[in-house]
């Protein structure tokens, strides 16, 4: 009689992912009101202010939200009262998480969004967006780093992404 030793199988510690699929909201042809959502990270306010100047005569709703934590319901409502929202700045792990997750919350409420993401964190931001069912969430990449730079330097980096912003928003 012959015997063979067979190793017991091992189970997979990786979990299944909870998937939901969401639809991205298209940008309106023209908009009067835009929300500028600032997560108070260094440079975020300079970025948003520079982008605002490039967008011409419109009504801008300024919203502040926490960096590493979700926006409060009031802050989300405020942002959702605009026709589109630009969120800045995703340049670290937790703030990227919450820029993306808050953008998704706004998209779920029908508000089209653009997230300003440091190019070092774009892959993570994209993964996060995919995991949350919005593969095509719109990001504008800005050159890392932003923290620690002077306002002028941040402005210079922001000017480089303005053509892409205008393209996304179809301006003119």
């Amino acid at each position, binding site marked *: 009689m012959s015997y063979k030793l067979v190793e017991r199988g091992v189970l997979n510690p990786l979990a299944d992912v909870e998937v939901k699929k969401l639809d991205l909201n298209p940008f*309106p*042809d*023209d*908009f*009067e009101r835009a929300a500028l959502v600032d997560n108070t990270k260094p440079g975020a306010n300079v970025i948003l202010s520079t982008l605002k100047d490039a967008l*011409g*005569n419109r009504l801008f709703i300024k919203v502040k939200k926490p960096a590493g934590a979700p926006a409060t319901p009031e802050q989300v409502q405020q942002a959702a009262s605009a026709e589109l929202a630009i969120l800045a700045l995703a340049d670290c792990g937790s703030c990227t998480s919450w820029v993306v997750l808050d953008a998704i919350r706004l998209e779920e409420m029908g508000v089209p969004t653009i997230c300003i993401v440091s190019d070092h964190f774009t892959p993570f931001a994209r993964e996060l967006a995919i995991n949350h069912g919005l593969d095509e969430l719109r990001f504008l990449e800005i050159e890392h780093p932003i923290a620690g730079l002077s306002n002028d330097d941040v402005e210079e980096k922001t000017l480089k992404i303005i*053509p892409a912003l205008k393209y996304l928003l*179809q*301006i*003119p």
Partner: protein
Amino acid sequence: MKHWTERIASDLTNWDVEEHVVASGTSISGSIHIGNSCDVFIANAVSKSLQKLGEKSRTIWIADDHDPLRKVPYPLPDSYEEYLGVPYSQIPCPENCCRNFVEHFQKPFLDTLPVFGIDLETYSGAKMYQDGVYNDYIKKSLERAPKIREIFNQYREKPLGEDWLPYNPICSECGRVNTTYARDFQGNTVQYRCQCGHEGEMDITSGEGKLTWRVEWAARWKIFGVTCEPFGKDHAASGGSYDVSKRISSEIFDYRAPYPVPYEWITLKGDAMSKSQGVFFTPGQWLEIGSPETLNYFLFRSKPLKHKDFNPEMPFLDFIDQYDRVERIYYGKEEAASQKEEEKLRKIYEVSQINNRDEIPFQPSYRFLTVAYQINPEPEGIYNILKANSQLPEKMEKLSYQELEDDTREKFRERLNQVKNWLGLYAPNFVKFQVQQELPSVELNPAQEEFLVELADALERQDFTSEELHDQMYHLLKEQGLKPQKAFQVIYRIILGQKQGPRAASFLLSLEKDFLIKRLRREA
């Protein structure tokens, strides 16, 4: 919400200027088509929007008639190749009808503009050089050539020669302006050599040579105080003409570059428009088949960077239908799909109009007219066909053609003329037909014969609407055991002498009743 032309105007109100100057420019290298006349239409719309906002604004147009000929435009003969490299302003008119090449192509274009409500101040690039308008700028550019070179080189793979100057004299030997290389200057005199072998000198104030394009463009901005300019998207590429001219404007001429409005090309049936290959469609050609508002609508219904394709054949009918629908929505005669859509369409319509109107104009279906016209080309006859087919608006249903107001009749005749031209120039064969005045000889089987007779009887007995006639025809052909397609073919064969034709019921109602009944009975 604002239309994009209004949005540009709104942004421009932030500029601290006494008067806005919206510039457009066209290279007179051949027929000016709807693709390269976009500048003019956009500039005019922006200027008008600025005026509505209470700003002072004027629209200017500069003919790039001093540029060298690069390709022989259609339909000029190959012999014109002798003029390659020569400024357009110095090339003769190909048909001896105009002063020169420039006027030959420019005149038909400029002549149509008033129809579009476009009011321009026109300038000739060549004349500007001759009148010395550029002189100071040429001088400054020569003096600051090293800096200009430096700026240019930042956007070039191969750097320019150390002695390169931003100026192209016209060769006194061969007459070409794109083959010369200016390498030195003293005062107003520039030394150059030409590819033809000639070496010479030129006085920059003579107006014969020209500044290199990107410098010239920047100079123009300051000369006219331009605050906004639309241009083809090839100039908008990163590191392209606009970027370079913007720097030249700021660093050499100390002037703020205008608000740019790049626009995408228009293709014709999917092909890029090409003057040399004869692929183009001019505003004049448009007016033959459509009202000027419809061209405005075509250009303004989407954003400037959205690609537009134009097809004057069958798709043109869909296009006019779309325009008419937007017009109905504007006047509240039809509902849009949503409030957002309504807002958007109203804006587009408004911006496309040349004159304001209180009421919706008479808009008989263009598509329907293409059929009606072929049955009876007379306006009154067509009007009656419309009436018989319930194609008239309610308030006109009881009116005869003679009872219509003058401007309604005028508008009607205009559209009829457009339809006639469309049929003659762009309609594919399958939409064309001719009512045979003589009875064509056709072999019919008994069922088919019976069907026609029954149909004639029915028509004699009563009047039908087109839905009712349609139902009746189906009923009769079923009675005879005929397939619908076969039954209709029979009708077309005995009336048109061919197997296909327009929609049967409304077609029959469009014909003169007596004639139709006799024909169905095969009496005449």
